[in-house]
Structure formats: structure tokens, C-alpha cells
């Protein structure tokens, strides 16, 4: 008589619990295995390039002489992208979450999602066919009037296919990522915090500064981090827009190269040691993103008490 309907359904439920938690655990472990596989593959394939005699590497001066200019180029492009995109993205997210009329907000959110949905290769084509052409007069002006700054040293590229153009295209590409994530976080700000601030006589900006931004800071950082991840690893836009070359300080002449574009442009025809060199370059890119993510992660955990959970 102990096997009542109640206890038997309990048994089935227990099995369901086990299966479900087991599946969840397995999925988590699969991710660790995949990542381990990626790292293992990169390291194993990169070893020949790291141990080869310096003269056999492209450029003839060893792997590190080959890699550091394109590392700097990658960082320059990503920094340009984030410097432009972050303030604009936060502004757009605030506009949609707190400034736009309520009825319009959903539609405007969709517009930004659309910007995120446009594929990188389309941005690349746009940057090469439209933006580079339109922006080259501005580069001439910069070279003429701001040329005393090393970053605007002339002569400006006639085609406009420079690292600054690539950075601007990248900033357009990371903008929607930062915007849509920040917007989600801004909308989660406890309504009572906002209303309390307004009730105390705060203006809308003071309300945002006191209640929305402190709540959203870890979310903004993780959004910027995702944007940085995309800017660092973005391949096609840079490969199509940038007329690459040796490392130069000037942002408005052709030159510089990013790791991802270097791999994309050279990998299909590469063979032998060149393949290892490019994979080692991929490993370097991987390590850079790892470093960036670790710093960002550390910042987020410091502000964990602000997050919405629990």
C-alpha cells in the first residue's frame, strides 16, 4: 500500500531530475572539451613555427619579428573601433531604454538588431566600395592640418583603404553588439530605484547616473568585452577594406595588418612551415583575447553584487 500514486510519480520525477541535471552537466563539459581541443590543436600545429630556424620564417628574422607588427596592427584596429563605438553604443542603448517614446522603443531596438544582423562580409564590401572612397578627402584634410601628430602623418592614402577606415568599419560592426546587450541590462534596472531617484527630484540624467549606470556597469563591461572579441578577431571586413603593409604609426596611410586578415589572405595558398606560422599567429590572437577576457572577467566579478541574480 506504500506505492501510492503520489510516491510513484515522485520516483518518475526523480529520474527526470537526474536525466536533466546529467544532460546539463554533459553539455557544460562538452564546451570545456571543445575549448581544450582548440587550444591543443593550435599549440601542436604552432610548435614547428616556434622552433624553426629564424631564417625560414617569412621575413627571415624569426617568428617574433614576424608577429609583433601584426599584433600591434590588430590592437590599433580594435582600439579605434572601441573608442568610437563604446560611447555611441551606450548613448544609443540609453536612448532606446530611457529616452525614446515608449511606443517607438521596441521598433528602434529592432533597428539596432538589424545593424547586428548585417554580415561582416557586407560591411567589408560597404567599407571598400563606399566608405573608403567617401572618407579619403577627410584624410587629406587631416594630413594637411593635423599632420604634426604622428598618427595623422601624411601623405594620406588616395584610396582611403587605411587602418582608420578598417577601424571605423569595425566600430560599426561592434556597435550593435554593445548596444543590444547594454540595452537589455538598462531595461533590467529595478524600476523602484529609478522612481525613487525621480521622486527625490533628480533630473532624468541624474536618475540615469545614480541608478541605471551603477546597476548596469558589469553588463556594460561584458558588452564591451564581447565587442572587443569581435573587433580583435574580425577577418573579412579588414581583409576587404585594409590595403595592408608594414607597420606604420600613421593611421591614414596604407599599411599595418591584423592577425585575422593576415591568416585569411595567406592561409588558402599556404603550405608547410607557412601554415604553422599562420596557426602560431592564430595562437597569439587566441592568447590576446584570453588576456582581454580575463581582465574583463575580473572586473565583472568585482561588481557581482550589482547583478540581477539573487
Amino acid at each position, binding site marked *: 500500500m506504500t506505492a501510492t500514486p503520489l510516491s510513484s510519480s515522485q520516483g518518475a520525477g526523480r529520474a527526470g531530475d537526474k536525466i536533466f541535471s546529467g544532460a546539463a552537466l554533459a553539455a557544460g563539459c562538452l564546451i570545456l572539451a*571543445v575549448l581544450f581541443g582548440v587550444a591543443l590543436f593550435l599549440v601542436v600545429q604552432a610548435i614547428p613555427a616556434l622552433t624553426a630556424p629564424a631564417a625560414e620564417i617569412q621575413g627571415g628574422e624569426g617568428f617574433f619579428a614576424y608577429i609583433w607588427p601584426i599584433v600591434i596592427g590588430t590592437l590599433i584596429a580594435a582600439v579605434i573601433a572601441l573608442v568610437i563605438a563604446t560611447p555611441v553604443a551606450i548613448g544609443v542603448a540609453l536612448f532606446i531604454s530611457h529616452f525614446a517614446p515608449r511606443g517607438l522603443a521596441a521598433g528602434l531596438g529592432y533597428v539596432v538588431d538589424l545593424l547586428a*544582423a548585417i554580415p561582416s562580409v557586407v560591411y567589408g564590401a560597404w567599407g571598400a566600395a563606399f566608405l573608403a572612397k567617401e572618407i579619403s578627402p577627410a584624410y587629406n584634410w587631416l594630413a594637411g592640418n593635423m599632420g604634426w601628430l604622428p598618427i595623422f602623418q601624411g601623405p594620406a592614402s588616395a584610396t582611403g583603404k587605411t587602418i582608420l577606415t578598417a577601424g571605423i568599419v569595425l566600430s560599426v560592426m561592434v556597435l550593435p553588439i554593445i548596444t543590444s546587450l547594454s540595452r537589455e541590462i538598462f531595461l533590467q534596472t529595478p524600476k523602484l530605484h529609478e522612481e525613487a531617484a525621480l521622486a527625490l527630484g533628480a533630473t532624468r540624467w541624474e536618475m540615469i547616473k545614480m541608478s541605471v549606470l551603477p546597476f548596469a556597469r558589469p553588463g556594460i563591461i561584458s558588452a564591451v568585452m564581447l565587442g572587443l572579441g569581435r573587433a580583435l578577431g574580425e577577418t573579412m571586413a579588414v581583409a576587404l577594406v585594409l590595403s595592408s603593409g608594414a607597420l606604420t604609426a600613421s593611421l591614414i596611410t596604407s599599411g599595418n595588418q591584423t592577425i585575422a586578415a593576415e591568416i585569411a589572405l595567406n592561409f588558402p595558398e599556404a603550405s608547410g612551415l607557412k601554415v604553422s606560422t599562420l596557426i602560431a599567429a592564430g595562437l597569439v590572437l587566441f592568447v590576446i583575447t584570453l588576456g582581454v577576457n580575463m581582465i574583463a572577467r575580473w572586473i565583472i566579478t568585482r561588481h557581482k553584487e550589482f547583478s540581477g541574480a539573487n
Partner: protein
Amino acid sequence: MSSTLTPVRSKRSALTKGQLPKYAPYVVLALALIVGAAILALIGFNAFGWGIVSAILFTAGLVGWSVVVEGSRKAKDKLATCLVVGSFLVALLPLISVIWTVLVNGVPGLIAPGFLTNSMNGVTGAYDNKAVEEGAPVIGGIYHALVGTVQMTLVATVISVPVGLLTAIYLVEYGNDGRLARAITFFVDVMTGIPSIVAGLFAAAFFFAVVGPGTKTGAVAAVALSVLMIPVVVRSSEEMLKIVPNELREAAYALGVRKWRTIIKVVIPTAISGIASGVTLAIARVIGETAPILVTAGFATSINNNVFGGWMASLPTFIYTQILNPTSPANPDPSSQRAWGAALVLIILVMVLNLGARLIARIFAPKTGR
């Protein structure tokens, strides 16, 4: 002097003292447009510069007036409003520009006969030369690329969504912030930063080792795409599951509901709108990925319906190769027309996906106080 004020006037000034009149923004806007046009007329007029100069003048004028009349707090609020609205307008510029460029260049390609139903099988540079020199119609289409993109993205989604969602559930519901959960969170963050081309190299090497050297199929590309897609799904789903109030879970437990039933019936339905939007962003990210597909699926000019065998084309690689290696190097215009047409199709595809996910999200969204 004060005795000359009427009672009505003094009452109004007590309530609206230190406020800009309601017409203030319109007056400042009109002045900014006029002065902006005047300045631009001196240095050569163009609409883009006029907009920028007027926006700066408008902000400066409104904030300056506000400082004088309303004080610094209200002025700061006005400045912030101007900057926020301005940043939105700035963000619209590239969107409009990209869509305009794709529409103008893409529509001729899209309406070319057979563009959506033909492949590039047998289309050679000779036909393109003929199209340019003799005005013959541009032939060749994107059917093969369309088939490839849909199949690879579908397989990638089928792999990524269950794995990503289950991982998010593990992290939020079962992990208890333990060692494994922290490790998974950390490495998902790391995976987010994997450049797409490295993910492609990984998938290619994995299949070279398991199946055989030179294995390039749609399935390899799908695996590469899921490496990119899983972390996006995990991160967005995790964020959304975290927002579900604990009160809902506790209410379910208090009614004697099992944990897995609680998750399926209470937690996920509450978060489903956010999860759907996250999955859409993930699909949007991978559907346009070019580099991993170039490395893993090769490039085909004919139709391939088998994900597990043979090279496969996709819309992004089609666009990339048509721009970089035109079918006829002497006359790249037909290739560029096909590339822009494919770009238009790709954007429409993504827009339809977005809209669909949005509708699903709206149907399943829980009612909130907002």
C-alpha cells in the same frame, strides 16, 4: 516696479520660474539650421556637414540658454539628452548607408532572371565579358549558395541551441557557483573571444584527424559555426535565466514541483523571449561568417544537397569570392552585381529570421510590470 505686475503673471512666474519656454528647442533648432547653413555657405555647402554643424550649434545653444535660465543641473540634463539622441542619429548613419548601398547595387542583381533559381555551374568569364560588351543579360545565380547557407546554419543551430541552453541551465540552476560552474563560465567567455577563422581551422583539423585529410564538407563548416554560436547562446541564455526572480522558483518548489519541471515549466517560459533574442543574435552572427566556411567547406559553384559530402557554397563566401576573384577578371561588373544581389538576399534572410524570432518572443513573453 513690482506693483505693476498683474496677480496672474506673478502666479505663473512662481510656478514656471527658471524654466525654458516650451518652444525653446524649436527656436534653437531653427536658429542652428540657419546659422549652420550660413557657416557652410562660407566653406562650401554639403548636406552632411550642415547636419553636423547644426547639431553642434543646437546643443551648444540649448545648453547655454538652459545654464542661464535654469541652472547647471537642468543644463546637464539637456546636454545628456542631446548627446544621447545625437549618438542614436550617428548610429543610424552607417545603417542607412549600408542598406542604401546594398539596395542600390543589389536590386539589379536580384531581379536578373534566374538569380534565385540557378547556380554558378557552367558560368564562365566568357559569359560575363559578353554581358558587358554586348549587353547580354548577366547569367548565373545563388541557388547553390542559398542551399548551402540554409543547411549549414540549420545544422549549426541544431547542435548549438541544445548544448548552449543546457549549459546555461547547468550554470544557473545546478552549478551553485561551484568550481566546475566557474570554470565553464570562464571558458565560455574565452570561447566568445575565439576569432571565427581560428574556429574554422579547429573544425577542419578535427575532421582531418577523424575522417581523413582534406575533408571539406558542409558538416565541418557547421561544426565550426557551432563553436562560434554555442558561447553566444550560453551567455545570452545565462543572463536571461539569471533574471528570472527566485520567488518564482521558490513558489514552484513550495507547491512540490520537481526541479526539472520547475525549470521547464516556470524558468524557461519566463525567460523565453530573451533566449529567443539571444539565439537570433547568435544565428545572425554565424550566418554571415565567411572565414570559417572558406576554410572548412571550400567553395562550390554547383548545387550540393548533402551536408556530409562534397564542397559547399554559402552566401558569404559567394559574396567574398565574387568580389575578390571575379568570374571574369577583365570585367568584374557582373560579378560585383551578383555579389551585391547575394548580399541583399543575405540581409533579407536575416531580417526574416529576426522578425520570426521577435514574433515568437512576443507570443511567449510573460506579462511584466513594464
